[in-house]
Each structure stands twice: as C-alpha cells, then as structure tokens.
C-alpha cells in the first residue's frame, strides 16, 4: 500500500525563523530557506506533530 504523505503548511508571513521546528524535528523534514522555514523532505515525516506543537508563531499546520 502506498504511504499517505502528510501536508505540512508553512504560513510564511507568521514564521520568524527561530529554527525550533527544524531543530526538534526527529527526522529532519524541515530546513531554513533564508529567514523562513520550508519543507525539505516530506517523505521522512512521521507525523509526530512536534513542529506544529512547538512553533511559537502559529506558522506550521500539519495534516497527517
């Protein structure tokens, strides 16, 4: 069966580039692109929701 990929929505105008999501993602899905975060490797996402939970800026929405 094909693995269903989650959706990771980055609201760029809210992101302040603090790196918290990048750093605490256990599978290194995210990376910084300039001052805002972006999705680097969606396939690696294990849907743990840590990035959404820890983002201080309401800038990440993960739909598993």
């Amino acid at each position: 069966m094909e693995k269903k990929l989650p959706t990771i929505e980055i609201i760029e105008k809210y992101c302040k580039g603090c790196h918290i999501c990048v750093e605490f993602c256990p599978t290194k899905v995210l990376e910084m692109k300039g001052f805002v975060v972006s999705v680097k490797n969606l396939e690696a996402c294990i849907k743990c929701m840590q990035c959404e939970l820890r983002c201080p800026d309401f800038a990440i929405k993960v739909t598993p």
Partner: protein
Amino acid sequence: MAYDYEKFIRPGKLPHIWCPGCGHGIVMKGLIRAIDACGLKKENTAIVSGIGCASRLPGYMDCCTLHTAHGRAAAFATGVKMSRPEMDVILVGGDGDGTAIGGNHFIHACRRNINMTYIILNNKIYGMTGGQFSPATPTGDKASTTPYGNPDPAFDIAKLAIGAGATFVARGTAFHANQIDKLIAEAIQHKGFSVVEILDDCPTTYGRRNKFKSVIEMMNHLKDIAVPVKAAEKMSPEQLKGKVLTGVLYKEDKPEYCEQYAKVIERAQAAK
C-alpha cells in the same frame, strides 16, 4: 487534522509581537488547547494581564480580554470575578509583572483562594524594557541592570504561590509543549486559585547576555533542568542540584472565595 488555533484567535491579529524563538507563543498555544479541552465559552472567559511581553497575550485571544496596568492583573481580575463569578477568569503575565510590582496582589489572590487561574510566563527578565533583572533572575546572572552579575537571590515562584495559599500550583516549561495544555486545563478545572508557572526563554534580552548561543540552547536548557515530580522522588539531593521540578507541585481543597462570599450574602440576608 492540524489543530485549529485560529478559532480562539482574533482575526487579523497574527503575527504576534514576540521575538523569534520566544516561548510565549508556545504557551499561548497550550492555553488555547486547554481552554478548548475545558470547553470554556469565549464570551464567558475573561483573560486578564498586566504589562510586559507576556501581558500582550490576551490581545490575541477572542475572549473578554483586559490588558491592565503593570502588576495589577490579579487585582483587576479579582474585581471581575467578584462581579461576575460565573465567568472563567484566566490571568497571564510575566515574572516581573507578577512577582515584583504585582507581588502584593499575587500573594493576596493566592491567599483568598479565588477561583481563577494565573499563568506566569517566567523568562527571568524584563523583556519589554530591554532586559533588566527581575525577582526571578538567578543570582550572578547578567541583565542590563546587573552588568557585574545579579546580587539578588531569586524567588521560587511556585513555592511563593504555595506559601501564600494557592490551592493548585504547577510548573512546566516552554520546551515541554505537550504538557502545557494539560497543566493549564487541570488548573482551570481546579476550584480555587491556581498558579501555573511556565519556565520560558527570552533569547533576545536574557539568553544573549547569559552565554546561550541560540534559541535551541535555551530550549535544551529547559529540557535539561526539568525533572517531573514523580521522577524527583527517586533522586538524591545531589542529583537534583540545579534542577527544577515540573508537573503538579501542590493541590489541596479549601473553601473558595466567591463561595465564601455567597455565604456572607446568605448570612446578611438572614439577619436583615
């Protein structure tokens, strides 16, 4: 589904004013999840704050919100709660606002055991004014007004709350994000004055003066120092050195203030 925080946030108010990496937003998310979990009604919930970075939180919340003067949140909130006991009243503020200029109101709100929840975002510094030391700044630390190291000892805010008579006291950290909502929810559901101290980070005015190279270092520091109360029971004093206890630190049932005043009304009317 992604959690819909925006159903509790006033339209158009984001992005918030807090600095990159400031944990206040993490705590606000925890508060939103807690309010949601407790089923509070927005129009029946008052969120009251004083002055400072943390005190800007109510402005984002789609509730009855009261951004008062420096240190005065607990006293304003006491008036709101007395006037409208049916409302859920939540206070939010920083360590300086709550325990320095607002210290007297804080301890007396604890003593009265009035049914409100006070969330103290303790980042150990006055952030909005640019990083002056607060009553929560550890001895020896640097702040803009302690350039040679802080000579003052710090308050243990949770202990202060317990000593003053708060009947529910908990502590969490901005790192332990998934615990914040649970602590706040339990505090909201507790009948009496509840205090939730969240150890928070201020990378802008505290971290950079105190050898934290990044937000991540500060977050990891919160992770390292936190010890859940249960785990601490099995640890030696040496092992607990430099650690802080997290979780529900104190809970007791005592008469609640508004209920006590309702009895005053009964007695007065019986005597009439």
